[in-house]
């Protein structure tokens, strides 16, 4: 299922494959080590601190602040139709970080380091197979979650 994650996927199999399923359901999942309690985003199955392989998913709010960004003009294979697109690194409120595209609710010219944002799960409508990702939107942006 992890091949659902991203417009172009390079990773089909991982111990945290369900991340993509949760994302399809509108949930952004980090991980927590059941042994020592260490938390991670992105999620990881094997604890970097205590070496335990016993983990559980932990939902994060997606609220965070912009750490840095770049507007990509020269794209690699699979993204040539998307240029220019803005990649953003977001520091999440609950700890951890993610990299995502700037969404439609924030104009590229308005982006600022330190601005509060909301990361929103998305599904590609224009691609037939299931493809999920997330974008960086204005704070307060809402979306639907599966029950």
């Amino acid at each position, binding site marked *: 299922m*992890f091949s659902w*994650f*991203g*417009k*172009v*996927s*390079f*990773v089909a199999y*991982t111990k945290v494959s369900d991340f993509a399923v949760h994302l399809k359901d509108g949930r952004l999942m980090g991980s927590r080590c059941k042994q020592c309690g260490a938390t991670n*985003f*992105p999620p990881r199955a094997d604890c970097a601190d205590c070496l335990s392989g016993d983990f559980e998913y932990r939902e994060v709010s997606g609220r965070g602040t912009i*750490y*840095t*960004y*770049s*507007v*990509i*003009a*020269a*794209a*690699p*294979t*699979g*993204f*040539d139709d*998307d240029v*220019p*697109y803005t*990649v953003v*690194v977001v520091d999440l409120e609950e700890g*951890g*970080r*993610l*990299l*995502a*595209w700037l969404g439609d609710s924030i104009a590229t010219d308005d982006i600022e*380091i330190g601005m509060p944002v909301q990361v929103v799960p998305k599904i590609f409508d224009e691609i037939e197979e299931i493809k999920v*990702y997330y974008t960086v939107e204005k704070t307060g942006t809402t979306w639907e979650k599966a029950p």
Partner: protein
Amino acid sequence: MSRIGIIGAGHGVFGRRSDATVQELAFEAFRAALEDGGIDRDRLDATVIAAVPEYHKQRSVAGVVQEYLNLNPRPTWLTEVACASGSAAIRTAWMAIQSGLHPVVAVIGCQKMTELSTPEILALMGRVGEVQWESVFGTTFPGYYAMFATRHMHEYGTTREQLLEVAIKNHHYGAMNPNALFRKEITMAKALDSDPVASPFCVYDCCANADGAACLILAEEDVANSIAGDRTVWLDGVGCATSSMSVLRRPDLTGLPSAQKAAEDAYKMAGVTAQDIDVAEVHDCFTIAEIMAYEDLGFCAKGEGGPFISDRRSYIGGDVAVNVDGGLKAKGHPIGATGVSMAVEIVKQLRSESGERQVPDAQVGLTHNVGGIGQYTFVHVFKRS
């Protein structure tokens, strides 16, 4: 521990070398190094080859190079840590000599990057980062360094012009280097006007892929003294450190922690400080990378890298001459060869053989070779005596 000396250094022409295979490129640098040191090929005990395999149609390139140099049955092996492969090979040679196993070792960095078609290059470009969480959003190599630049500009007020002043300096010196890919000066107006790549970068913030090779011959102290005598340049400090693959696991994106640690270790081993360095080759794959290198290596304080280039403190005659062979920017960046090329330049500088680019009375030199976006950094300190 024995001192390890450099007894031969050779460099081929970097550029679009559609006239030669990778082993033919390797041969040019190898022959030049033997001639430079007046070394009989039979003195070599082993070779270490540096190359990044995914660019070559020929798989397991060390084998074809070893054969073409007519060095069978002596041992060889490949080192690969992305753009730092060349320095990893030098470190490996240093260890092989220290161990007593191989008293004389040739290091050959070679790369043929223009063998691949543009679509193949673009596909590779999409996998330079961490592929599970980052490449899925179309990150690129310039894009990563661009994000460092964006943050550095935000925190320290580094300017667009300061970034490009790095490129202007490196083209200035590249114009004097017969082995460089680009041998012409550039102006600020022209640089600012070039096509966007990944904001804030445009074309002139980025180094270019190239084909090329460089070779270094290293030897144990007594052998070095007997073969090269006073011409020996000593590799007295070797530092190597790593940082996370993913930028999501790195709190600070205004410098490279691996470079700071590698520098600290190399300085300590060589018994020098940043202020002792007369000439340095740093990994300027993008303009911000050289500015961060000034800071990570301790040539200036954190955040002062912008003013450091504006005040021309990294030109010949400044605090420390940096990339006076043109750097990756003007010389070109055949990724497996780059670390070895840096070392060749430092050896020639410390021997006062660099002609119009010579740094006066250079006694201590340094190379700073980065793999990826600082996942691996090697810092080496060289001395004249």
